[in-house]
C-alpha cells in the first residue's frame, strides 16, 4: 500500500494546479516544494516593506486558468482579485518618445494610424487573423494533450478550422510581424514579445505572433502579487485534502521495471506513491532524478537533445516617488531585427549589450498595497542570459545593475537613481541556485517548433509508467496560463489512465 496516490514534485503553477485538481478527483495528494514558498517563478517576496514579483509579472489569455478553477468548483475571479491593466503597454524609445497602447482595439488602431495610416489598416487585418487563431487555439490546442500523432489527429478532427492556421507554423514571428507592419516605429512595439517565448523573432514560429494581440483581450494583475494565483490553487487543494510540504527537495524518483514507486528526499526520507507528477525541468527529472539507466536509448537521445530555454536577470527596486511611466508594462523599443541582432551577436557570444532593452513592470500602478504609502515598486527585466564570456554573473552583477539603472534614468524613468530605497537583483545564476532552474531557464526547454506539441516531453511519460509531467517542460510550454493548462492536461490524463 503506497503512502500517497500521487506525489507532485515542485510547487510551481503546473504542479500546484495539478495537485489541487487531483485532490478534487478524491486522490490522496502530497506536493513537495524545495523552497519555503509556493509558485516558483510566479511568486512574490517582501523586502523592507516592498513586495516584488519573482518573475511572472501579469496574466493574460486566462481561459485555461478559468477552466482549471471551474473544475475545482469555483472561479478564477472568486479566488483571486484580478485588477485589469489598461493601458496594456507603453513603448519607450531611446529618444524618450513613447507610444502607449490602450486595451481597446479601435483606440489602438487610431494610435497606430496616427503614425502610419497603412499600418493602422493592417492592424485590423492582423487582429482579425489572431482573434480567430487565439479562439481556436484556446479550445483545441492549449488545454489538450499533445503527446502523440493520434492526439494531434484528434485535435484537427475536432477543430478542422485549426488547419487553416498551419501556415503560421511555417513562418517565423518576424515574417508575420513584418508582413502586417511596415513602419519602423510600429515594428518597435511588436519585436520584443517573441522573447516571452524565449526566442528571437527569426527563430520562433509565426503562431506566437498572437501575443501583441492577446494583450488587447485583457491583461490582469492579481491584487497582492503574482503569488496569489498559485496560492489560490494551494488553498483549493488543501481544502480538498492535498498536503503541501515545504523545504522538501526530491533527490530521486524511485523506479522499478519502468514504473514509478515514489520519491527519495534529500534527507533520505522515502515516500511511496502510485503516480508521480513532475513539475520540474524534464532534463533534470529524466537524467538526474530518474537516471539514464532507466531510459530507452531513443528517449535518452531525445531528452539530451533539448537546449535549455533562455534565462533572464531581474532587478527589483523600491522607490520613494511615483515613477513617470504610463502603464503597468513598459517596453524599451526594439524592432524584430534588433532582437535578432541581440540574439546572434550577444546571447550566442556571451557578451552583454551596452545598450540594453527589456521590460519595465510597475505593479504598484495597479496595486498600491505592494509598497508603503506614496512609495512604488518596479520589477525590471533587462535582457540577459546565463552564459557570459570571460566573466561570471556574481562578478558582473553590480556593473549590470548600475548600467541598467543609469540607462533607464537617462531616457525612460527620469529621477529613478535618486529615489531608490531598496534594490535586489536575481541573475540567471541565482535563478538556478534558488529555484533549481538549470541555467536559469525560465521556460525550461527551448520553445521552437522542433520542441513543441508532440516534440516536447510528453505529459504522460511513455518511458516510465505512472509518471506525468506538468510545467514549462511539457505542452503547451512556459507561461502562467500555459503551465496551468499543463496541470489541467495531466490531471485529465491521470483520471483516464490511473484508476
Amino acid at each position, binding site marked *: 500500500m503506497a503512502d500517497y496516490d500521487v506525489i507532485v514534485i515542485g510547487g510551481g503553477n503546473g504542479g500546484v494546479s495539478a495537485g489541487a485538481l487531483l485532490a478534487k478527483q478524491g486522490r490522496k495528494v502530497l506536493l513537495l516544494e524545495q523552497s519555503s514558498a509556493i509558485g516558483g517563478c510566479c511568486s512574490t517576496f517582501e523586502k523592507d516593506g516592498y513586495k516584488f514579483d519573482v518573475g511572472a509579472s501579469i496574466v493574460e489569455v486566462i481561459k485555461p486558468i478559468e477552466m482549471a478553477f471551474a473544475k475545482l468548483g469555483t472561479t478564477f475571479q472568486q479566488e483571486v482579485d484580478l485588477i485589469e491593466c489598461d493601458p496594456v503597454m507603453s513603448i519607450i524609445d531611446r529618444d524618450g518618445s513613447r507610444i502607449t497602447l490602450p486595451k481597446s482595439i479601435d483606440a489602438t488602431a487610431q494610435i497606430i494610424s496616427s503614425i502610419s495610416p497603412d499600418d493602422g489598416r493592417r492592424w485590423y487585418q492582423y487582429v482579425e487573423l489572431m482573434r480567430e487563431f487565439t479562439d481556436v487555439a484556446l479550445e483545441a490546442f492549449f488545454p489538450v494533450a499533445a503527446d502523440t500523432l493520434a492526439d494531434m489527429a484528434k485535435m484537427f478532427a475536432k477543430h478542422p478550422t485549426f488547419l487553416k492556421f498551419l501556415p503560421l507554423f511555417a513562418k517565423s514571428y*518576424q*515574417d508575420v510581424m513584418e508582413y502586417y507592419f511596415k513602419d519602423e516605429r510600429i515594428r518597435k512595439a511588436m519585436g520584443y514579445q517573441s522573447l516571452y517565448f524565449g526566442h528571437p523573432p527569426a527563430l520562433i514560429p509565426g503562431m506566437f505572433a498572437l501575443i501583441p494581440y492577446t494583450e488587447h483581450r485583457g491583461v490582469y494583475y492579481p491584487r497582492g502579487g503574482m503569488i496569489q494565483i498559485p496560492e489560490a490553487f494551494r488553498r483549493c487543494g488543501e481544502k480538498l485534502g492535498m498536503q503541501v510540504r515545504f523545504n522538501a527537495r526530491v533527490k530521486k524518483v524511485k523506479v522499478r521495471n519502468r514504473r514509478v514507486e515514489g520519491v527519495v528526499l534529500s534527507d533520505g526520507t522515502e515516500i511511496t506513491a502510485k503516480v508521480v507528477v513532475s513539475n520540474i525541468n524534464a532534463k533534470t527529472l529524466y537524467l538526474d532524478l530518474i537516471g539514464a539507466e532507466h531510459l530507452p536509448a531513443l*528517449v535518452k*537521445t*531525445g531528452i539530451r537533445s*533539448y537546449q535549455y530555454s533562455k534565462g533572464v536577470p531581474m532587478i527589483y527596486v523600491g522607490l520613494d516617488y511615483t515613477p513617470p511611466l504610463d502603464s503597468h508594462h513598459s517596453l524599451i523599443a526594439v524592432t524584430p531585427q534588433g532582437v535578432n541582432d541581440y540574439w546572434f551577436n550577444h546571447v550566442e557570444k556571451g557578451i552583454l549589450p551596452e545598450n540594453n532593452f527589456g521590460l519595465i513592470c510597475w505593479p504598484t500602478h495597479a496595486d498600491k498595497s505592494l509598497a508603503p504609502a506614496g512609495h512604488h515598486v518596479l520589477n525590471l527585466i533587462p535582457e540577459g542570459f546565463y552564459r557570459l564570456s570571460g566573466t561570471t554573473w556574481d562578478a558582473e552583477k553590480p556593473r549590470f545593475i548600475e548600467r541598467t539603472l543609469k540607462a533607464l534614468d537617462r531616457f525612460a524613468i527620469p529621477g529613478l537613481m535618486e529615489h531608490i530605497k531598496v534594490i535586489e537583483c536575481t541573475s540567471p545564476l541565482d535563478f538556478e541556485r534558488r529555484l533549481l532552474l538549470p541555467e536559469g531557464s525560465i521556460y525550461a526547454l527551448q520553445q521552437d517548433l*522542433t520542441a513543441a506539441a508532440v516534440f516536447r516531453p510528453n505529459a504522460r511519460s511513455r518511458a516510465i509508467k505512472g509518471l506525468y509531467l506538468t510545467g514549462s517542460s511539457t505542452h503547451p510550454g512556459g507561461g502562467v496560463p500555459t503551465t496551468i493548462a499543463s496541470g489541467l492536461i495531466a490531471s485529465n490524463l491521470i483520471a483516464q489512465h490511473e484508476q
Partner: protein
Amino acid sequence: MKKIVCLGIIGTLFYGYTQLTDSKKRYIKELVRQMPYLVPRYFV
C-alpha cells in the same frame, strides 16, 4: 533525362532559397539543424 530533371529541381530550390529574406533563411536553417532530433523527441 532524369539527371536533367533532378538538376532542375535542385537549381529551382537553390534559387528559391537565395531569394528568401535573412529571417526566413535563419528560420529554415534552424529547423533543418534540429530535424535529426525530431524522432527521438517524439518518444520522450
